């Protein structure tokens, strides 16, 4: 019996090994060698990792990435929740609003980048024009406006996801809890604090984890919008790593960058998995 099971699993395992296991192992192997394109590899142990952690642009990109994730979370989670709470609960507008909200989520990531490139163009863009009218200088050639434009793009793109998650969570709260709060003369704030928030806790954890993981992997939108510029001010981790791997010839060091990046994402996936299974157990 057991041997037969193996035969059924084999195609999937083979496919997995070709698509995931082998490339990762190759990169791991590269990262342990001095390896320039075309040269003979030489084993150097963890030297590449030490070098990576001493590469200032890389460490800066990690720091930038964490700040980016923190900032988009601080904006998207409260904004998404606030939007979800103002959405209609029933009626003909529910479907319409949900579809409208879903549109940014349905647009391919690189197209989002292109849309925002049009927004920021000095000649026809809506953002420079809008800022000009309120008398504020705006140009993505400068570090701060560029950074906040990248953040704004992420908020524009992904807040609807948080909203949809929260909306589903809100709909799942039995009305009896709100009736009980009214019976207890709870104020609007107390109702939010003691009924809505605790009941949304699990949904919020999922939203936070999904957004932090995804924001670590963000690539095409900032690449198209600013390509990490001006300078390296908007160079997120994925942009840095891909630039190293494609532009540079030091494959060993690039592999080390990739693996460190991979491990960060992996740890976050693990946290997501553990949290979600614990939620299941507690119920």
């Amino acid at each position, binding site marked *: 019996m057991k041997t037969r099971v193996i035969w059924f699993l084999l195609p999937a395992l083979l496919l997995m090994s070709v698509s995931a296991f082998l490339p990762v192992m190759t990169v791991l192997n590269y990262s342990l060698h001095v390896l320039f394109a075309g040269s003979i590899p030489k084993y150097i142990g963890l030297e590449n990792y030490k070098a990576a952690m001493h590469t200032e642009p890389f460490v800066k990109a990690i720091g930038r990435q964490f700040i980016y994730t923190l900032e988009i979370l601080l904006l998207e989670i409260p904004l998404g929740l606030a939007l979800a709470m103002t959405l209609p609960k029933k009626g003909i507008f529910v479907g319409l609003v949900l579809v409208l909200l879903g549109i940014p989520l349905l647009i391919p990531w690189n197209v989002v980048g292109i849309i925002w490139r049009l927004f920021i163009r000095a000649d026809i863009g809506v953002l420079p024009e809008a800022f000009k009218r309120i008398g504020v200088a705006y140009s993505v050639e400068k570090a701060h406006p560029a950074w906040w434009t990248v953040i704004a793009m992420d908020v524009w793109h992904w807040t609807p996801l948080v909203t949809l998650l929260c909306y589903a969570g809100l709909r799942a709260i039995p009305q009896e809890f709100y*009736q009980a709060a009214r019976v207890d003369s709870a104020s609007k704030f107390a109702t939010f604090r003691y009924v809505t928030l605790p009941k949304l806790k699990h949904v919020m954890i999922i939203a936070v984890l999904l957004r932090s993981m995804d924001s670590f992997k963000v690539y095409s939108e900032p690449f198209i919008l600013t390509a990490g510029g001006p300078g390296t001010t908007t160079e997120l981790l994925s942009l840095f790593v891909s630039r190293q791997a494609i532009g540079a010839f030091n494959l060993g060091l690039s592999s080390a960058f990739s693996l460190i990046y991979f491990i960060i994402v992996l740890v976050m996936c693990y946290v997501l998995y553990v949290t979600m299974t614990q939620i299941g157990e507690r119920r």
Partner: protein
Amino acid sequence: MATIKLVDITHTYVKGRVETPALRGINLTFEEGCPSALLGPSGCGKTTLLNILSGLLIPSSGRVYFDDVDVTDLPTEERNIAQVFQFPVVYDSMNVYGNLAFPLKNRKVPHREVDQRVREVACLLDLIDDLDSGPRSLPAGKRQLLALGRGLVREDTSVILLDEPMTQIDVHQRWFLRRELSKVQSRLNITMIYVTHDQYEALTFAEKVVVMNDGLVVQEGTPEELYRNPQHPFVGYFIGTPGMNLMECRLEGNRLELPGFTKSISKALAEKLKKHGAQFKLGVRPEYVHCDTRKHEGWFPLTVTIVEDRGEFQIITLQGDGSSLKSQMPSTLQVTEGQQMWVNFLEEKVKVYKNDQAIV
């Protein structure tokens, strides 16, 4: 506590052009300090009535009075009611103490008073040892008590509404919760309205039971009255396990012609019935239907179709030509399905209905 009065309440749900009448003229009084129950099958309008009492719904017409104060248009917050729902509604993020203190804190009651009231109520509900624990760690019965406790901490509560509070409580916990509810009721003497479709819960809890069907109050009275003297065939059928046997019958001289058999009655009863016409509905409770394997004078033969053993007694379903009759007999009686039995019931135990009104 307050006396609750409902005057000419009607309610119709309107959805688009479809109008669904839910309540069709309800006049009721729930006396102060009296445990009452609203009993009826699903869709009879009892939940609508409860929502009108709690302020969730404003009736299409009619007024609601709490101690002669018209509260019909007041929102829930201003009615001073307490409500216990089908499942325990407790605030998970607060401990038991916080839950009990919540309604008082919202009303800006001073701290010392809050503490005193919370402890009093916790003592009464046997929650004093659980004050620091989270509500999630309590069994469902205790969580439901905690929900009740939030209604008891306020001294000005007019009425406690219980909306099928046993639905999600397991059997063992139900017994515990039922005992606690009776204890609270007898100690505090509060007005409680218990809404349920379960006759056992209603009859054991309440001193006054209101039976509803199809948006109308069919009968109100003590459990005893409802059982012994159902004024409407529905009450007879709905209360009792199994419910009352109901059969169409025709008066022919001194005999009642029932489908499948004939029952002779006394002259006095026949005279009484004659005044109301000839066509009636006859009701008799299964425990008054006697059957025997031997023939007796005036008894009629029916065939046994189903025998259900309930331990001390058995429920025998008897079939005649177009009629079906249930009888409750001691388990000692030997019966087999398919057997012929001789059946009779005393006319004093019979209820006779004309146009759904009891006349005998």
